[in-house]
């Protein structure tokens, strides 16, 4: 356990170091590409925080990303609201958390777990996208909302203006690093231990006096809040929000990022998000309709070939070199 923690912190430190030196070698465009990928990495980490620790798969996590994005867009596009950027981020986080709390309350306290939860969240994602399309007076319908200003605020005399590439890259990297570190310390501590106990045997965990539904609910709400934060950051960087951001395809992609990166590692999903998005951009430049096809193949391959994600290749190779060949 201790060695594993040390390894995780080591990899984390290496990633942070890479993120710090990257601007020395990259131009503005490359910075924005990595910045946007990092935001999706934060989104992936938020899903992993829930899925990895509880074993329950949320199939509509993009709903929270989209809710965060739309709230941020509506707040910052409204000229009457002061401190729009800060209020928008807070509103996005609170809005996503609120929706998660309502849905989660009914599901977790109703004894919904496992596949049932997956299905209901799947439908939630479908409906969020439909709502974003059909409620066009507020959400702008199919085309979404454009012209969302970059984040800009004053904090204790410090003026933060993220309209340039480098400041926005640093800001996003810092938020992602802090959030991943925070999620990791929560999930490795007592909270995560109890979640593991609930995942292994909920009845036994409840018999030991743990309020299992409440724990699951709080974890779910926290996960949704981070997803909302990622959504809010994304729309400010991209300058637009569209129904796709709450759609089924994004919900699906985030699952692939987590599964490829390695479920339960928090850092793996961030790396998975960055790598797969690079691959997606390359493939889509040939033929845009090829990507969903490949995505489907990736799903099947993950399940049969790499059930523990890319990071497990390293562990497998290690055991291979040590001569400890085990059949599966």
């Amino acid at each position, binding site marked *: 356990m201790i060695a594993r923690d040390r390894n995780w912190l080591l990899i984390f430190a290496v990633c942070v170091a890479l993120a710090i030196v990257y601007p020395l070698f990259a131009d503005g465009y490359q910075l924005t590409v990595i910045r946007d990928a990092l935001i999706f990495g934060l989104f992936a980490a938020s899903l992993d925080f829930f899925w990895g620790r509880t*074993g329950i798969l949320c199939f509509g996590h993009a709903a929270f990303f989209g809710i965060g994005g739309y709230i941020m867009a509506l707040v910052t596009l409204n000229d009457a609201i002061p401190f729009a950027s800060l209020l928008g981020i807070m509103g996005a986080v609170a809005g996503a958390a609120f929706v998660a709390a309502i849905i989660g309350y*009914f*599901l977790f306290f109703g004894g919904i777990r496992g*596949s049932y939860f997956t299905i209901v969240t799947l439908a*939630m994602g*479908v409906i969020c996208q*439909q709502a974003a399309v059909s409620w066009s007076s507020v959400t702008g319908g199919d085309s979404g909302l454009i012209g969302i200003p970059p984040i800009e605020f004053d904090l204790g005399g410090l003026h933060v203006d993220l309209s340039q590439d480098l400041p926005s890259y640093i800001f996003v990297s810092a938020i992602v690093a802090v959030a991943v570190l925070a999620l990791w310390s929560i999930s490795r501590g007592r909270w995560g231990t109890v979640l593991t106990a609930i995942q292994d045997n909920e009845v036994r965990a409840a018999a030991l006096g743990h309020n299992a539904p409440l724990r699951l609910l709080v974890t779910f709400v926290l996960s949704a809040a981070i997803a909302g934060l990622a959504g809010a950051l994304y729309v400010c960087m991209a300058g637009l929000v569209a129904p796709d951001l709450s759609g089924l395809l994004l919900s699906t992609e985030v699952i692939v990022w987590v599964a490829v990166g390695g479920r339960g590692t928090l850092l793996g999903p961030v790396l998975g998000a960055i790598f797969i998005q690079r691959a997606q951009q390359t493939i889509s430049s040939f033929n845009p309709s090829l990507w969903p096809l490949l995505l*489907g193949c990736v799903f099947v391959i993950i*399940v049969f070939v790499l059930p523990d994600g890319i990071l497990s290749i390293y562990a497998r190779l290690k055991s291979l070199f040590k001569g400890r060949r085990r059949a599966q």
Partner: protein
Amino acid sequence: MPPKACSPACANASPARPDAMDFLVTTLLNALTLISILMLVGLGLAISFGLMNVTNLAHGEFVTVGAFAVYFVQSMGGSFWLGLAAAPIAGAVVGCILEFAIIRHLYSRPVSTVLATWGVSLILQQGLELTFGLGAKPVTPPIEGTLDLLFTVYPAYRLILIGIAMLTLLGVILLISRTSFGLDIRTVIQNREMAEGVGINTRRTYAIAFTFGAAIAGLAGGLVAPLAIVLPQMGVNYLANAFFVVIVGGVGSIGGLVAGSVFVGGLTSILNYQISPSLAQAIVLLAAIVAVRLRPNGLFNGASR
């Protein structure tokens, strides 16, 4: 009071004049159309999700494949009825391949099943789009025109659809309750190990039951094709609704399936009159979640699973 005949392509056949009796009967028949489709799609899910504990997210694609089968046969010059006969066969073939290639290897890994079947669903959708091209595919109903039903005038094809769906359901009930294969299925569901112990080939039973469910969903796709917009992505709406049918109704009985379909289908068609379809969907979802909270074992099942 004969109101104007509604084209069968619209979501709800609506009366032109607000006559109370007319309105009631039309609403009832609209609801019945939706309920029939939901029952057929839900049947396959009740088998795989409810009984085999397999979460098959590619179930909606059986509906899509069925609808495309009708379109394909019609575009080759065949009649609608020939297409409707091809629809369950197309569903069964896809279901059978899916069971053999993927699902039977993952019975003990539920989350992996979710991921793999979703992958298959994406592959099927994109494959259909690459084969048949973008855009909605036209499917013409076998009978245009309407039937006079004393209180209202209703599209004849919808009445045929309801009739075929009811007959299919009756056939399934008879199959499960009267034949030796039905007995095998019921035995495997109750206790898999014991069923193996008394010499039932459970893998084969699962495979046949799964293929059968896929065929019924394909038939539903074929039936709904003239009323719906036939697209490679059409399956996901049926998928979500059919899962609600199974979850709300509770697993393990035809009664639960009927109760769930009536709940989801009835509520959707009543709400569709008042508000926009996507808002109606959202309300049905919320109602389903609340219903599950209040009756965790389903509307129909009193006892625990």
